[in-house]
């Protein structure tokens, strides 16, 4: 690991000032940053430790009904916050389907947004990677790319964003609160992670020195609590990244879907919300056929970036499954294996 200066600011303003120089990284729990620094993919000159900054670790219901989550709230604490989990069970399920208990105890919600792709070529400093080193090329394109992107990728980069948490956040229209040298601003979570296009090195909407201070769920996000699920396909029963995942949310009245949300994970450089699918579902009955049409629509633009065409079909199927389970109703207690098809009792609808 490269030597670095360690700075522990006393306020957000001090933190932002300290991060003005190039080569600076904010340090929260460090569960992803340290991993990358040990492997040599990240070599910052300066770490600005934001773990002690005041006011960043609250989970608060705002007057307008929105839910504001401080950037330093630990993943496990959010998922196990009873009021939060009741209102947003899918967000809790997604959080608990990710990583391990130890990592969830440390990792922060802001860090979850900021985590890097797990593309092995990105993590390997000996490999060519446009995201890590602009203009170097993309070794993943002709390499081992079975788990890479099927949506929104470019010739320059086929990496995916690995977060589970961000998938339901995108579907629920979460907003990212940002503080920076030029003051505070907000960005929709859907627009926070950037697709690679010509500039894969620009991974998020943050400008230099900017800091995520909170994530806000809008007032209407709690309206899906009765019919929502997160489903995650992975190659180990636990402690594995998603091959594909889906978060599905329905509002149902008299058997008719009045509003739907659908987002996919593990398919692109950002959590992938499909408004086309959501429109298709609106006004439809709770039928497998409708869900299949919506899933197909969500993946209409998908194309393999390598040896990964199977992910398109798997993404379609996991979307259908998430929708079926959402239709069946959110379970009263989180399943033993969060997000796993292996612990779902999906019943008649799924077998339809």
């Amino acid at each position, binding site marked *: *690991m*490269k*030597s670095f200066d360690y700075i522990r600011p006393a306020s957000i303003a001090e933190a932002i000032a300290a991060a003005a120089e190039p080569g600076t990284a904010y340090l929260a729990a460090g569960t992803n940053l340290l991993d990358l620094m*040990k*492997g*040599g993919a990240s070599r910052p000159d300066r770490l600005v430790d934001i773990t002690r900054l005041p006011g960043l670790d609250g989970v608060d219901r705002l007057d307008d009904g929105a839910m504001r989550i401080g950037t330093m709230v630990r993943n496990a604490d959010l998922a196990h916050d009873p009021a939060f989990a009741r209102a947003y069970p899918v967000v809790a399920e997604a959080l608990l389907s990710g990583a391990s208990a130890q990592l969830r105890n440390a990792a922060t919600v802001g860090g979850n947004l900021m985590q890097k792709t*797990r593309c*092995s*070529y990105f993590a*390997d400093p*000996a*490999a060519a990677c446009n995201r890590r080193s602009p203009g170097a090329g993309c*070794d993943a394109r*002709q*390499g*081992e790319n079975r788990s890479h992107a099927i949506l929104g990728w470019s010739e320059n980069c086929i990496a995916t964003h690995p977060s589970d948490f961000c998938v339901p956040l995108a579907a629920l229209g979460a907003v990212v609160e940002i503080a920076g040298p030029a003051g505070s601003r907000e960005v929709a979570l859907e627009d926070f992670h950037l697709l690679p296009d010509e500039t894969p090195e620009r991974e998020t909407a943050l400008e230099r020195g900017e800091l995520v201070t909170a994530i806000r769920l809008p007032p209407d996000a709690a309206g899906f609590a009765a019919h929502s699920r997160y489903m995650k*396909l*992975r*190659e*180990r*029963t*636990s*402690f*594995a*990244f998603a*091959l594909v995942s889906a978060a599905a949310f329905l509002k149902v009245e008299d058997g008719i879907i009045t509003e739907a949300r659908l987002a996919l994970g593990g398919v692109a450089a950002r959590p992938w919300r499909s408004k086309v699918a959501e429109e298709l579902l609106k006004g439809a009955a709770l039928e497998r056929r409708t869900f299949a049409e919506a899933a197909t629509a969500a993946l209409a633009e998908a194309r393999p970036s390598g040896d990964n065409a*199977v992910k398109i*079909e*798997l993404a379609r*199927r*996991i979307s*259908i*499954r998430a929708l079926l389970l959402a239709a069946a109703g959110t379970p009263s207690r989180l399943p033993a*294996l969060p997000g*796993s*098809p*292996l612990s*779902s*009792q*999906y*019943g008649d609808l*799924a*077998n339809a």
Partner: protein
Amino acid sequence: MPDTLPFPPRMGSNAGQPLSRRDGPLKVTGAATFAADNHPEGMLYAVPATAAIARGRVTGMNVAAARAHPGVVEVYTPANRPPLMHDPDEKLGLFGMRMEALQNDSVRYAGQPIAFVVAETLEAATEGAALLAPEYAAEPARVTAETGERYTPERVGFGGPLSVGAGDIEAGLAAAAHRLETRFETPDQYHNAMEPHALVAQWDGDKLTLDTPNQAIVMACGLFAAYFGIPAENIHLRSPFLGGGFGSKAVPTGAQILTILAARELGRPVKLALTRQQMFGPVGHRARTWQTLRMGLDGAGKLTALHHHSTGATSSFDDFIEPAAAASRTLYASPAILTTHDGIRLDTGTPGAMRAPGEASGSAALEVAIDEAAEVCGMNPLAFRLANYAEVEPITGKPYSSKALRECYEAGAKAFGWASRPLAPRQMRDEAGMLTGWGMGTAVFHCPMFPASAEAVIRADGTAVIRTSGADMGQGAWTALAQIGAAALGLDPDQVEFESGHSHLPDAGVAGGSGHTASAGQALHNAGEDAVARLAELASTDPASPLYGTGNAGVLARRGRLYARDDESRSESYAEILARAGKPQVEGTGKGARDPASAETYALQAHGAVFAEVKVDPELGQMRVSRMIGAFAAGRIINPKLARSQYLGGMIWGLSFALHEEAIHDRRTGRIVNADFAGYHVPVNADVPEMEAIMIHEDDPHVNVLGVKGVGEIGITGSVGAVANAIWHATGFRPHRFPVRIEDVLPSLS
């Protein structure tokens, strides 16, 4: 010896008891000292830099930058590496392998050590290695079957024959009612013991102390010594605990040699601990195989011919060909059996023995092929296996020293509920709608022994100490070997001090091949009996002893006393005998080794039957083993509690082989793209639901004096096939490539 039967009444007490591990309290408190836990005064840290190409040369490194990093003490490259007394490219002994110790600038696999940085802190050494930023002249990597060089090796495994068979395969196939040819591919797997290879070296003149985990402690001293031109006795190798071995911690590797060299050159102790990533290359692996099975079957479902061919991968510069086809030599009866091998050279590290070398990969293929044969014949897989049951070893015609496989089938099938299994696939779903399948496989493992020696000392206070340089890598040697020694001494284990785990002790041989308990155990058994015989000699020749005139054959040893065999009212304690004789102690010695006569006369094999239930999501293809039962017959079980753990651990390795493990090389660079625990999946706790190991009683008077066959590896065999066959039964998809992936089963689903 007065009494050569294993554990006769005279030796009664504790062997066979499910004692908890004697090292348990140390291991649960963090007090068990593993190699990297040592911190001699003034210690430096060593970190190797490794190659990012798979073939070519290193043309430059920024040694100046590394040296300039604060804390860096020395940087070794081929340009300044001090001389060794043995060429790293020359093999040493039966188990020695060619290694990389900076002998030149060539690169022959990705991950090869190409420089070595020593520093005051781990942080400085690590960054020093990163700053070297090597440049290369790379040649195309050959890491696929298509690009590798096909060749005919001289031997497979550790000196095994390439081809073994009997009968006429082609005639058997020609006469068959059904013929089947089926192909399999198994991947590169890496041992990945939880403890990465580590070594702390300290020199004192020409004496060397090594703290390093090792499976063959005394043998390794000879190998290490050769590189430094010192007598093996000058090395004190301490290996009280191994954080797993699985075959990867028997022979020295280049980075270990360089650590010792640096310690000598710099005059300070040096510690090396490989990173997890550095474990993928220089410390061995289970190499890929491509296997073909050709089978002929008559109308009654009996084999008329069985030809098992395996092509194994090895490195470009050394030979270890997985003896995979050997699995077909002993398990099923057929008038014609042929097992053959050849090899492919790839730009990888040299493979080596990894838990059940040969049998693991070979039985994975064989057991799936056998299931396919059963399907062709329309038979239940268990009925098919029973129809082809080998009453004598097929190729040699030798009787088995013991073989309770039939009992394993029965007990396993009963516990599993096999009788209600539908014959056709895709017949079962659980209440959640998951496709459910049941599969089985037969487990088999040979029973090697290695030369071992031990000593036993009965002390004046009636307690004893037993000594042998054994290795406990988790199998429970500290407990099981102590039980054997204590039983032979007629003492409770609590009264016996067991000294082991370092090289200044009688050579316990190799902790490998599942043969440690049999080998070191026999040595301890004989040493204990020898010590008791000396005590009996003292008593029976002393007119003042109540045992006067009994002779050694006339006494029993129990609970620290000798009793007259025909009159147990005559007895005397060990302490009393020694006190009267005025001796501080009596010493016995013993050896363990395979009796060549028994190996000549009998086929020596442990057996088992594994049954697995697999759930498969009917749309998504996600798979999970939901239930696994193995029944094993492996001779005498010294400690059922620990043997159970060995069996279950082996079965989990089988599950892992079937569903998880695969190191994936980038085709162009040859680098392994998943060289860590995030990418190279081994099962986590949630992957392992209900498991059970059933122990089938087996008395074997022939395999060795203890009747012990070994339990360390057999669990993996049979288990791969059981899981794969259960996947078929759930989905109708027949796996031919491991690990089975979601996209493999997907086409068979809705």
